[in-house]
């Protein structure tokens, strides 16, 4: 934390504030759709530029951080404005900036109250950046809740038929978990302050708190309540399928690509390091939940008719694998999990984009009514096939790298878990192939002429496709920032 004293350009603050400023400008543009559209694009391009700069020019914030910004905020309660970036945060920031760009392009044709739509997307980006960068509990909680509001409105106003119910369910479910976390946060702050005499919400300070095992278990449970609901692990996943199904296209992309990742990120950043002993005891339960989720969601996906819901279940199933990797508590598995978070964001994100495009063209998302798209829109179908194959983990495409790292890592520690998980991956092939078969192959059930991909849609999908291939063939540049970060986290968590 020595670097805090050095005057350096506040890049991380820029990442958080730039989208916020863009959102406010969009709001000021009231009814002018075109201006707000370009404004949103410019803002998200700028954010993407900043995150690329950070990716290529690693700073050194001291104490293992790439960058670290620390400003006094509410001194009376030891709350500080601390933003910190390590390798994991860097990847998540990059993913956020990239997917947000895609989301804004995807929302390009939104006509109804467009400036509000873009303002909410940007506000969401600001909140997500904050979640990935905050290193003070209250600051983290602030962004954690702030990110809910734009998503709530995106679903409630622009969503499908049951949007209001889905929005409320999304908000209350995640809020219930968050409030448990808030109580745990304050209690931890109190215990630490009573012990050391300095009251602080900064995570770096709280790491040294000595807790009795009962305290640790309860506090850990409080934090995990928030993260498990957000991830979501299986008994608590019903909000996600509803929210994903009802959300507008850009909202679904953000939800599946980014928002549910914040739960897993929270485990890595907060729950595990703060409560190492409790988390070690909890790992087997986490693994069981993850495996159960992997199979349950895959089974649901296999039996689902609505392709958007099918993808929602596939998301849950994939995240089960990510969590399993974390539960193995092993370097390779963790790196795989984090990589899988990123690649899953890309592949499933792209699939949600494609589902939105198909829905736009055919007016349906039901497997019963789809089929034979290959003959009607070949480029679109090719893209669909590419991302579906990537999603089921075909070697050479993005998810494969992450999945194989997870499975290898898990196998070294718990071979049985790995074997069970393998079966789950096969299951993924089953429902994905069913999806592909029912959508693009087979006879066309309805004769229609469909427009193929437009220039804007190419612009969204082509970079994603390139990245998916790149990450599948040569993921090393994206794993590199993780090397220095994951090992100390594992050590810090496992005495």
């Amino acid at each position: 934390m020595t670097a805090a004293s050095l005057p350096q350009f506040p890049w991380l603050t820029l990442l958080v504030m730039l989208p916020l400023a863009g959102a406010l400008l969009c709001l000021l543009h009231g009814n002018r759709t075109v201006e707000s559209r370009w404004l949103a694009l410019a803002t998200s391009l700028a954010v993407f530029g900043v995150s690329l700069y950070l990716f290529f020019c690693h700073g050194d914030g001291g104490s293992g951080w790439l960058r670290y910004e620390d400003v006094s905020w509410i001194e009376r309660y030891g709350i500080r404005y601390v933003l910190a970036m390590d390798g994991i945060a860097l990847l998540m920031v990059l993913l956020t900036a990239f997917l947000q760009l895609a989301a804004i392009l995807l929302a390009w044709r939104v006509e109804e109250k467009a400036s509000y739509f873009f303002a909410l997307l940007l506000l969401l980006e600001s909140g997500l950046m904050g979640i990935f960068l905050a290193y003070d509990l209250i600051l983290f909680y602030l962004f954690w809740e702030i990110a809910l509001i734009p998503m709530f409105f995106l679903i409630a106003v622009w969503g499908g038929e049951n949007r209001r119910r889905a929005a409320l369910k999304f908000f209350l479910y995640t809020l219930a978990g968050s409030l448990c976390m808030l109580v745990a946060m304050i209690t931890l702050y109190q215990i630490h302050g009573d012990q050391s005499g300095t009251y602080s919400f900064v995570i770096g300070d709280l790491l040294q708190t000595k807790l009795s095992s009962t305290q640790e278990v309860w506090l850990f449970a409080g934090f995990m309540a928030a993260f498990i609901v957000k991830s979501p692990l299986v008994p608590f996943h019903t909000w996600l399928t509803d929210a994903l199904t009802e959300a507008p296209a850009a909202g679904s992309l953000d939800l599946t690509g980014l928002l549910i990742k914040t739960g897993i990120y929270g485990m890595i950043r907060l729950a595990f390091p703060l409560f190492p002993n409790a988390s070690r005891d909890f790992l087997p339960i986490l693994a069981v939940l993850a495996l159960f989720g992997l199979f349950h969601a895959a089974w649901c996906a296999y039996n689902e008719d609505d392709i958007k819901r099918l993808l929602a279940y596939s998301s849950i199933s994939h995240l089960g694998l990510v969590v399993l990797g974390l539960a193995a508590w092993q370097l390779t598995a963790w790196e795989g999990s984090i990589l899988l978070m990123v690649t899953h964001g890309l592949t499933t994100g792209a699939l949600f984009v494609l589902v939105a495009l198909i829905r736009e063209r055919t007016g349906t998302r039901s497997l019963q009514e789809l089929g034979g798209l290959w003959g009607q829109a070949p480029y679109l179908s090719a893209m669909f096939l590419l991302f579906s194959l990537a999603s089921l983990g075909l070697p050479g495409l993005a998810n494969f790298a992450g999945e194989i790292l997870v499975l290898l890592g898990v196998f070294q520690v718990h071979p049985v878990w790995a074997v069970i998980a393998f079966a789950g991956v096969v299951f993924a092939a089953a429902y994905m192939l069913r999806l592909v078969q029912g959508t693009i192959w087979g006879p066309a059930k309805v004769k229609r002429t469909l427009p193929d991909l437009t220039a804007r849609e190419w612009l969204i999908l082509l970079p994603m496709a390139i990245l998916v291939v790149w990450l599948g063939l040569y993921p090393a540049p994206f794993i590199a920032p993780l090397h220095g970060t994951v090992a100390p986290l594992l050590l810090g968590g496992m005495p």
Partner: protein
Amino acid sequence: MSVNDLLALTPILILVLGGTALLMVCAWYRAPRPLLAGGVTVALMAALAAGLVPPPATEISGLFSATSYARFFTILWSLLAAAGIMISARYVIDWRLGAGEYVSLVLYAAAGMALLSSATHLLGLFLALETFTLAFYILIACNRRCEFAAEAGLKYLLTGAVATGFMAFGIALIYASSGSLHLPEALTSLTTATGALQAWGFLGWGMFLVAIGFKISLAPFHLWTADVYQGAPAPVSGLLATGSKGAVVAALVGVIAVAGPVWHDLQDLLWFMAVITMLAGAFGAFTQQNLKRLLAYSSVVHMGTLLVGLICQSAEGNVATVFYLVAYVITSFGAFAVIASLADERGEPMHFDQWRGLGYRHPIRCAVLSLFLLSLAGLPATAGFMAKLVIFQAALHSGFTGLVLVGIFASLISFAFYLRVILVLYQSQNETSSWHPGSAMEHAVLTVCASAVLLLGLFPGILLDLISLILT
């Protein structure tokens, strides 16, 4: 009463004499605008006087204090009165209420609230409480064309009379057992009293708390709240929800600060009351279809949460309570101000059907209303979150984990019913009719409230430091 006492009373005197002067003037000169402007000026002058004139004495006639704590609340209630008159202006003009009477009643109420917040004597407390209650009896029922106004006024009158009875009898019992009405002696002597005397004393304090419970609508004495808020004009409901309750809480903070160990004996009772108040308010609000009634139940939840801060009986608990109170006053008043600014000749938008889709008709004011509702719910970056944070922190520090968990649960339900309103606001419904565009003064009040909500949410440090300074 010496000159020093009078000097120390300057802000209150400005309110009372200013109100009386306006009342006199309106006997001959009934143009509403100058009278309203006069009322705002008087209230602002009182706030200025409270802030600028240093009191020469710290206690006035042994009834009221003139400490910086009292001054702080005098300023707050004076500003509230000014804002209240500003958002009532259109009501007074359009509905042809007597401007002079209306303004002077608001000023009297503010004087009563300011006195109550600074009471150091049970008689002073009683007198101040009756002062603003009387003013509110009239203000609630002042719109004779509204069918609910008379009912609301009557309900407030009846519950108020019961509360007065309880309080007077309670004070008599306290006097009988302790021999003093001055605080803290009336409280501390309870610890030295023995046998029947002590029992009578506790019974007295119990009755006192029942009366307080009626005034700040703690469950199970909260049933009048929704009906009264619904029937009263929105600005009056706003004052009633914030000022009249806030002044009582402010007085309680003062009482508890000096209460000592006796408070512990009442703690169990208050613990129970806080729990059922938070839950009754939250579940009561859940089924409401009328925004004013919903805000009434919301105020019940908030009173329960404030009680959590009071129960702590610690320095940080008191700081948290006062901060929560200020945050609640600004936010809740702002929410009623939005309703007032939309009111037109058809009345106020109240039922959810009238609010449906209004977010697109009046985007700025509905966004501000959403901000206030989210702050009442406790969303981070708003004043409401910081208030909840500091109060729960204080409670956890004092070991009231159970209370905090109930409070958190009530927050969760609160989010549900506030979000329901927001969903209604942004439901697409094209045939919604527009309401009044709002006057410049109303927009000014809303701007101030909204900025304060955000500022207190993001930078609460200044106010927290100020509060801890005035409490020592």
